[in-house]
């Protein structure tokens, strides 16, 4: 046996309690939830002292994705995707914009910084209640044009029944393949300048091929559902996205501002000396330098978009399919309908979606450490 230094032993002993607790209360319970999602725990005797749980395999998942009554969940999932994308674009875009403005050191910069960061200090419930009032049909935001002599808006921020960008869930596989093809082609173009041969072989050609094959043989693909079911972006979700962006753009601003301040003034001076305008400085020098910040902002914000429960609960309540979210459906399915197995299945799906964000990040982190 090799010598174990007392230092190492102490470290292990110190870490052991938290390792055990995390293993039990985080990973143990994830495993337990997964197990429950494979059973049929639910229905009338769900709350018996020793409830009957029969193993049913992936039936709960199949019902959620292809069942007649899973339509609500599928719309929620589509909503969650739109929430994530729009929150990322909105909060990072606005955050960067404000950070750049403040980085130019206007008068009273510190006051503005506090003002913009402040919404983050509020809880989602408070934000939700305030914005629900602001977005009420006959008040708040809709009255803004009247201050400049216009007619009040009539848009139903939270209750609109309109949907755009609709697609048929039956064509899910088709859309996924097209998305893949477009993604590969885009990556190919993006890396073309760096390494044309590799970009062509690895991304462009397979991308074009995949697109062509999907176009030609798309009819042969199985349909994801036995009936037509359209899902799209519900305009009612705009109100919720607006409130989230309001709350989190200040936070991304703070992240970027910290990054920008960390860039040495010499670099900026050098860029200016070379004749770079402010815009070109941020585009080609500052933003590439704060790439790690962009990555962490994306990860944090996408997680927030998956945990939007309280905001939606406060703004549109529990039974509003237009603005639904898997997290909300999971709670209602579990604790209102007593359908514990299906609730667990929804939780696992959410967990998987979150994992798709976090795992690539972890992998790239390990690689960086390895190469060092």
């Amino acid at each position, binding site marked *: 046996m090799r010598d174990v230094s007392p230092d190492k032993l102490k470290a292990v002993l110190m870490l052991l309690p938290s390792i055990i607790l995390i293993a039990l209360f985080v990973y143990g319970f994830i495993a337990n939830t997964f197990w429950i999602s494979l059973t049929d725990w639910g229905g*009338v*005797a769900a709350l018996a002292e020793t409830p009957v749980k029969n193993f049913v395999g992936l039936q709960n998942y199949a019902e959620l994705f292809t069942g007649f009554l899973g339509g609500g969940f599928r719309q929620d999932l589509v909503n969650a995707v739109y929430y994530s994308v729009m929150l990322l674009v909105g909060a990072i875009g606005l955050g960067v914009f404000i950070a750049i403005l403040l980085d130019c050191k206007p008068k009273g910069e510190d006051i503005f910084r506090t003002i913009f960061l402040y919404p983050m200090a509020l809880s989602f419930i408070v934000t939700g209640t305030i914005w*629900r009032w602001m977005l009420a049909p006959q008040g708040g935001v809709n009255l803004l044009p009247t201050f400049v002599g216009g007619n009040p808006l009539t848009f139903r921020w939270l209750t609109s029944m309109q949907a755009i960008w609709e697609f048929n869930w039956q064509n899910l596989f088709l859309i996924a393949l097209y998305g893949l093809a477009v993604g590969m082609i885009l990556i190919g173009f993006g890396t073309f300048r760096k390494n044309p041969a590799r970009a062509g072989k690895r991304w462009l050609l397979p991308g074009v091929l995949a697109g062509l094959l999907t176009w030609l043989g798309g009819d042969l693909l199985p349909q994801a559902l036995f009936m037509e079911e359209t899902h799209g972006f519900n305009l009612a979700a705009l109100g919720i996205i607006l409130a989230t962006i309001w709350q989190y753009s200040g936070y991304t601003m703070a992240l970027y501002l910290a990054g920008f301040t960390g860039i040495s003034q010499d670099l900026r001076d050098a860029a200016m000396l070379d004749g770079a305008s402010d815009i070109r400085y941020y585009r080609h020098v500052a933003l590439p330098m704060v790439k790690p910040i962009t990555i962490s902002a994306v990860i944090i914000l996408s997680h927030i978009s998956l945990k939007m429960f309280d905001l939606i609960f406060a703004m549109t309540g*529990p039974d509003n399919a*237009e603005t639904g979210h898997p997290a909300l459906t999971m709670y209602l399915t579990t*604790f209102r309908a007593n359908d514990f197995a299906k609730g667990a299945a929804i939780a696992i799906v959410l967990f998987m979606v979150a994992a798709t964000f976090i795992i690539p990040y972890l992998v790239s982190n390990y690689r960086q450490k390895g190469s060092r």
Partner: protein
Amino acid sequence: MKKPYFNMLVVLGLTMLLLLPVTTTWAKDLSGDLEIFSWWAGDEGPALEALITLYKARHPNVNVINATVTGGSGVNAKAVLKTRMLGGEPPDSFQVHAGQELIGTWVKADRMEDLTFLFKAQGWDKAFPEGLVKLIGTDKGIWSVPVNIHRSNVCWYVPANLKKWGVSAPKSWDDFFAIAPKLKEKGVVPLALAQNWTANHLWESVALASMGPDNWDALWAGKLAFDSPAGVQAWELFGKVLEFTNDDASSLSWQQATDMVVDGRAAFNIMGDWAAGYLSTTKKLAPGSGFNWGASPGTDGMFIFLADSFGLPKGAPQRDNAIAWLALLGSREGSDAFNPLKGSISARTDSDLSKYNDYGKSAAADFGKDRIAGSLAHGVTANEGFMNDFAAIMEMFLKTKNAQATAKATQQIAVKNGIGK
């Protein structure tokens, strides 16, 4: 020789003293804790307090723990209760909507004690209407003590406004469809509606009017399919009614929808009779003249009821204290202390009507003679699984307005949730 005599007398006297209160008011010597779990906070808090005060007067040695979890119609409280029950830590007695919400969740899971013995001992089988006892029990027993009765199918309006517009309160939905276009022309919303659950609430009034009480009962007994012609007709009628509601409904609370009637922006509102308390207490309108009411169109002589009740969970830590609590709830004294404050009526047929306001008196009179039907939106007729799925079905209908497809989907969730089994 005198001393033992004297001693014996003292001992005898003391035992008599001890025995006397026990035999007359048997519960005086209850002690320990009593934890009651409810969602009655805020506006409803004082009514619960009145009951607790009464309980303390009867059993001064019991320490009452009032565990409330706030949130309308128990959204949060029910989740907390479930985690407590699953964790093996039941409260002594908890609030629950009487009917299938209790039976489907707790009785079928074998977590409740049968209260038939208490009903017999207290003579409640005669004090409560027979139809009510049937709806809160199963063939295996009676599972909770109803504390109050609310009516769901009430149509509210302001008489002065109706006069101004030249219409009268509709007796049937055909009457309503005759006057609704007139109201619309005047820029008045014929029927004010609020967020999702009030649509479920409206649906039960419309469906009962459409299919009649016999079909309604058959529906929940599993003898009539939801996608039968009668079921589809109910959805069709509901769709027609929705055409005359406000389009910003889902962003309003029920109070805001009632406000529309008060402000003269809407003509009618169908809401449970908690609206009476809101209109008279908060809005300071006089019952009968400031605001008036009738059964919702087409449901005259029918009473859709919902009730809050308390049950006795198996394994209650202080069972005797809980039984004393339940005995108080069902007593005339208890229910007449609670209900005038809560704005509901007593489930008993012999309550002291002088303690109630005008609305309460009229509701109590109707409750005594009307055909009693159970409420869907408030947990009497269907279990929680069905109610949860029905909320999703309602969302689907509000969007598609397709009666046929919605009726089919409703039948599917009825099968899935074992309605009538």
